[in-house]
């Protein structure tokens, strides 16, 4: 992994615990202290999520949105990974290697603790030893370890694009390499690997391209899969990862450049996300930052999803296909049906104007108005403007949002009796704040902040009726699509 060495060479300031807290720029995903390189897989301990980076230290968060510096990982070195097995948190990291002035002689080490919270009495790291090495002469660089615990077996991938990615098996009871286990080469052209298992497939993710050059870093995340943890891993075209294959998972977008170092976050209920770092957040000085994005599954392959973008949409129920709408009287568009039916071939063609808000708004009731679901008719009461509200916080890579009828102050709210209504104006409390999380099939779950702790989401409990009830991942009733009008 050249990034550590390059960072040193370029005399960049260490990614230390002295970073200031920054408010989230409008386009950013996360708030607080987000500067990190090579974030480890997010791991939950003592009420917080933790991630550790290169050089030591790390970040923690209670909600996956606002992060603070101060996590503690001893041992220095680069690119750790973390996994919890039983009551132990194993942490693996590498010392040495990374190329350039650091050479390629490196040791992958492992240690464990019963808590990741430095304030916990159980926080005490026990170093076990070295579980893999590169000698500095072979075509290999033993850094960037990544765990997978599956079916009672503990696997570890490691390596960089200087040679091969290798896989070894560890003893989950001790963290040490199984006696007699020999590394297996499973990929080339990668670094910052990660492992996942799903539906009988082992997935090897890794980062292609080059890091550590800010907005000019070409990092992007790729994947191959295999029925065996030791390969052969191939991509969607059947190209072996040992020959440079890899299907794209995530790459640069918007103001975020250089996607690398994948880490799965399985939040349950068909919501999976992944942590990564972007080599450059163009709104944060082009520095390397933590990010969290939705993970989708398409035809057995993981691919990055997308938070809903600010804008105006039809909100379509996956249950009925009906659109969320303010309950108002249906207003006919002026139209001469008889003339249309009787029109001859030479009749002039004219455009029919769309119904607009001024056409109908005067007839809408004052005060709170309930919402329902109906056939989408491209009408003003069916168009909702989604506005991020990062000042209110967020949850795992997505800010809270406000949802208003386009062109009005009428705002979707979670009512006292756990129903859904549009209020006539904005409120300062949580009732009008919504989480919008993309599910693994690409649809979205819409969760009221007010009742998030109860597990409630906006669900189409009938063909035409939305309500706030517990989300059921086994049903389409709580899944929504945001479609452009």
């Amino acid at each position: 992994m050249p990034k550590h060495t390059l960072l040193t060479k370029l005399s960049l300031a260490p990614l230390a615990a002295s970073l200031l807290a920054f408010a989230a720029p409008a386009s950013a995903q996360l708030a607080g202290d987000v500067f990190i390189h090579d974030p480890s897989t997010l791991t939950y301990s003592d009420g917080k999520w933790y991630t550790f980076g290169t050089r030591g230290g790390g970040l923690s968060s209670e909600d996956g949105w606002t992060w603070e510096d101060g996590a503690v990982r001893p041992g220095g070195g680069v690119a750790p990974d973390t996994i919890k097995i039983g009551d132990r948190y194993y942490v693996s990291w590498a010392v040495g290697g990374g190329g350039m002035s650091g050479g390629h002689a490196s040791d992958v080490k492992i240690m464990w603790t019963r808590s990741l919270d430095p304030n916990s009495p159980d926080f005490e790291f026990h170093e076990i030893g070295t579980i893999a090495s590169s000698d500095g002469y072979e075509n290999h660089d033993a850094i960037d370890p990544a765990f997978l615990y599956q079916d009672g077996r503990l696997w570890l991938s490691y390596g960089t694009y200087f040679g091969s990615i290798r896989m070894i098996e560890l003893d989950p009871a001790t963290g040490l390499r199984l006696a007699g286990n020999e590394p297996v080469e499973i990929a080339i052209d990668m670094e910052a690997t990660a492992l996942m298992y799903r539906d009988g497939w082992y997935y090897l993710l890794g980062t292609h391209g080059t890091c550590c050059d800010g907005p000019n870093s070409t990092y992007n995340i790729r994947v191959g899969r295999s029925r065996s943890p030791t390969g052969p891993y191939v991509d969607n075209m059947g190209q072996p990862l040992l020959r440079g294959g890899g299907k794209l998972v995530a790459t640069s977008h918007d103001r975020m450049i250089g996607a690398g170092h994948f880490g799965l976050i399985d939040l349950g209920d068909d919501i999976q996300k992944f942590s990564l770092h972007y080599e450059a957040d163009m709104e944060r000085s082009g520095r390397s930052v933590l990010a969290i994005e939705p993970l989708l599954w398409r035809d057995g392959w993981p691919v990055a999803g997308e938070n809903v973008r600010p804008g105006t949409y039809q909100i379509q129920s996956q249950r009925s296909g009906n659109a969320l709408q303010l309950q108002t009287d249906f207003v006919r568009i002026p139209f001469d049906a008889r003339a249309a039916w009787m029109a001859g071939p030479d009749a002039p063609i004219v455009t029919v104007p769309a119904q607009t808000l001024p056409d109908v708004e005067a007839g809408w009731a004052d005060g709170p108005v309930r919402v329902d679901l109906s056939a989408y008719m491209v009408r003003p009461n069916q168009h909702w403007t989604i506005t991020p509200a990062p000042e209110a916080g967020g949850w795992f890579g997505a800010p809270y949002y406000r949802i208003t009828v386009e062109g009005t102050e009428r705002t979707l709210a979670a009512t006292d009796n756990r129903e859904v209504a549009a209020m006539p104006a904005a409120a300062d409390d949580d009732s009008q704040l919504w989480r919008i999380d993309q599910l693994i099939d690409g649809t979205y779950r819409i969760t009221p902040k007010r009742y998030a702790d109860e597990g409630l989401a906006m669900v189409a409990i009938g063909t035409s009726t939305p309500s706030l009830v517990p989300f059921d991942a086994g049903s389409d009733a709580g899944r929504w699509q945001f479609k452009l009008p």
Partner: protein
Amino acid sequence: MTKTWTAASAVTAALALWAVNADAREPGQYPPLSDYFSPAAPAPTAPDADGFITRWLLLEPISKPNPTNTVFTRSYVREELSPATYPGDFAKVESDGQRVNGLQWHALDSRLWDVKLFNFAQALDKPKYGVVFWAVTVIDVPEEMAGVRLAVGSNSASRWWLNGEEVAGLYDDRRMVMDDVLSDRLTLKAGRNVIRGAIINGPGLSDFCLRFLDADGQPIRNLAIDIK
């Protein structure tokens, strides 16, 4: 209804008229009432296997000419189907055979999961299109049930009351779909609960279906349905 509707409705009305004229069989040629209903049995009944309530007092249809469903706006339906337009005492449950304004109440058990209002009217040689139906039933609840929802579908628009309180409305252009509209969470009191509904039909095959769902969305079946 507006002038713009009048223009648009001309074509639809003509088509509806054509449909009525084309259906020119003698009354005896229509499917008999017994194809869809049987007289309500003396003993209380239970919801069907899916929880649908099939025993109802149905009033013969009230003429309310409407050639299309798209005029059934919320305001119109709420004005025309209301306690004020109920043909009788909104607080009382009528009895089988009772007449009001020349129309008769019929206590019936639907043979199906839904209640075929169109066939009810047709079998009695009453108007089928452009009409309002009223339906009433009584459920006996063994113990108070909270967090319950009334789930209803209707062709076309309709309004529904539980113990005199409005709990659901289906407006605009409707076809009957099970669990189309659900009420807010409500409480069925122990003992007698009265359900009353009004359904308006334009040119359609009018019917409705109604059941109660528990907090988990499962149908409630431990109800005794009677209309006495």
